[in-house]
């Protein structure tokens, strides 16, 4: 009887290709160059992150009331932020009225929350979204500005802090997107006059820095208006920021429009749809979906650009922090102030970019290979 061949069991893989060691070997120590890079990276980490951690966390003063409580600590003085926190959030909005800002934010979060629930059908979401777009700004404006229904009036000069930043960014975003879509459609239009107007508009705003636009809106707009009529400083900034970002938005949307095959337009026209129906029902839904990353990038740019209103003397988050660092009672804490402001801006911009990435994945319907 022939002995049946029993194969020797497979040897386990060598210890340096699997598990933690395998990972370390592959990613950090695979060649002399790689080892040198790892050492360099560790060195960079040790000279940046460690002192930063020490300064911001371990040696920092976390609790206390006055700047005297910070003297004992060699690190950051977060008491400075605590003492000014309300100011950083609301600016010079009267303390007794701050509940109005809170209410408006809460209202927005509650009413917009269903938009992010996937179980709710899209048809309802569209209706809710459009309704919010029309009604919410009116409610929010009445809450912020006051002067009606027994609410005391609060002048826009007293608006400030993160609240003002969000107002400018929010208005800018909601106004710049539709304006940008219209401009993009105009730029792709068959009518030479409309096309020329739109191209001129877009190229003008894209060619100049935002800061000159804000300068213009603060020194030239009063000259453009008839005698006796004047715009609020905030409104002027809003107009400048919106027109500026609408031009950028138009270019983003144009990219999406150009990516839609001509057959889509022709098929829709063959079905007997008119121009606006072709655009609203066939072309734009596809085009906008393609350029979501670009749209969100424009939003992020707009959010960062709101900090420029400091130039014309509005007290947004950036300016109110800068203002607090020049407070004679709290001199010498500008690093803490700017780091705090940077963290807030970073949080908003980073979450927007992450959200756009997840949206892109979810809406990915096979245009890309």
């Amino acid at each position, binding site marked *: 009887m022939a002995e049946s061949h029993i194969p020797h069991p497979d040897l386990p893989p060598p210890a340096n290709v699997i598990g933690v060691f395998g990972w370390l070997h592959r*990613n950090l120590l695979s060649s002399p160059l790689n080892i040198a890079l*790892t050492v360099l990276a560790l060195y960079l980490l040790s000279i940046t992150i460690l002192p930063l951690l020490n300064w911001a966390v371990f040696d920092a003063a976390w609790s206390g009331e006055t700047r005297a409580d910070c003297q004992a600590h060699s690190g950051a003085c977060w008491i400075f932020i605590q003492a000014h926190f309300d100011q950083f959030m609301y600016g010079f909005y009267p303390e007794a009225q701050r509940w109005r800002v809170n209410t408006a934010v809460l209202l927005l979060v509650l009413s917009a929350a269903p938009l992010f629930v996937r179980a709710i059908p899209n048809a309802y979401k569209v209706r809710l979204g459009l309704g919010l777009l029309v009604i919410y700004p009116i409610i929010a404006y009445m809450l912020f500005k006051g002067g009606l229904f027994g609410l005391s009036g609060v002048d826009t000069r007293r608006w400030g802090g993160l609240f003002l930043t969000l107002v400018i960014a929010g208005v800018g975003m909601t106004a710049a997107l539709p304006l940008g879509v219209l401009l993009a459609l105009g730029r792709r239009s068959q*009518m030479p*006059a409309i096309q020329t107007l739109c191209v001129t508009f877009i190229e003008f705003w894209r060619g*100049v820095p935002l800061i000159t636009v804000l300068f*213009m809106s603060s020194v030239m707009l009063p000259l453009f208006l*008839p005698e006796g009529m004047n715009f609020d400083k905030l409104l002027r900034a809003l107009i400048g920021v919106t027109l500026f970002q609408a031009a950028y938005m138009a270019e983003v949307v144009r990219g999406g429009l150009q990516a839609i095959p001509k057959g889509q337009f022709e098929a829709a026209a063959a079905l007997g749809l008119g121009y606006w129906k072709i655009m609203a029902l066939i072309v734009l839904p596809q085009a906008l979906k393609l350029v979501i990353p670009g749209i969100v990038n424009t939003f992020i740019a707009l959010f960062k650009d709101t900090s420029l209103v400091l130039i014309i003397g509005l007290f947004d988050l950036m300016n109110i922090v800068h203002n607090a660092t020049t407070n004679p009672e709290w001199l010498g804490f500008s690093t803490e102030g700017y780091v705090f402001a940077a963290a807030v801006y970073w949080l908003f911009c980073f979450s927007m970019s992450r959200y756009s990435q997840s949206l892109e994945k979810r809406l990915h319907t096979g245009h890309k290979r």
Partner: protein
Amino acid sequence: MTEHTASLPPKPPFWNNPQIRALIFQALALIATVAFGWTIFDNTQDNLHRLGIASGFGFLSSPSGFDIIQTLIPYSATSSYGQVFWVALLNTLLVSALGVVLATLLGFIIGVARLSKNWLIAKLALVYIETFRNIPLLLQIFFWYFAVLRAAPAPRQSLSLGDAFFLNIRGLYLPAPQFQPGFGWVLAVLGSAVVLVLVLARWARQRQMATGQPFPVLRTALALLLGLPLAAFWLTGSPLHWEYPELRGFNFQGGLAVIPEMASLLLALTIYTAAFIAEIVRAGIQAVSHGQTEASFSLGLSSHLTLRLIILPQALRVIIPPLTNQYLNLTKNSSLAAAIGYPDLVAAFAGTTLNQTGQAIECIAITMAVYLTISLLISLGMNWYNQHVALVER
């Protein structure tokens, strides 16, 4: 016959004719634009008249009466506003040009690091990119200016590096090169070396085309470019000296002084733009599919030739347009100088000059025209380049 014509649908009314409609819409749009423009013009005329402001560019020749902390061309308080414009424009161009060079260098390094096989390096690059591109540029400028450079020590306690570089609250002091008379010879030799290398490259290519024999152009070129000027430098007796900054009295004298406004603006612009450039470089390199490298290797090209002839030309086609866009952004962003008082176009011309003369429209118009010209020039160049390198398909 009559029955047949009667069954035809009636001719649509003229307002449903697409051509006529287009004409009407365009006419309406034009009328609206002109009316809008006219209203603004009329209001402006009224307002200027009421405020007693004379319009026109006559103010450009009157003396300015203020000093500027950094001037590249001769300027004093008695110079004209026209001179202010040139000083300010040069300051803008200086900080933009330096920013473009530095941001490109840093951006390419970080973009390549982002694709490194080393996990730590790749993550460090990612953290850098995600941190700095999500913080407003103005905040970064303020941080470097108010929190770092304005908090630097007084001149007597300057931070120094090898007794050559000094940092204090007045700015950054670097050694300045002093060119002696013979240095012109070195430059002349360098120029002729460049010409020689170009001729050599042309000859080598023709010879390779004709005979198939390659010539080590790169090595020869490097030897020529380095060797000849160095020899000239030595022969003319080292005509280059460095002037070190020295503490005399209350501040440093000599050397090259960089004002803190310029230093912080440049630092912030570089760090911010480099984050965007790094992402562009990464995307460009990733856009060249791996199959290209494999195909090139299987054709027998070396890894050096693969990089030069296959990967770089394709990656650059993806990288260059957004890169130019970033250069343009950097130039426009340099206008944030106004916030910290670096005398650029917006600060010195659209700011100080405007405030002193009250010529709002003229100052803003000139400033915007300059930025528009720069933008249009760059986008013209970009379009030319795009046509030059665009993929030619069937």
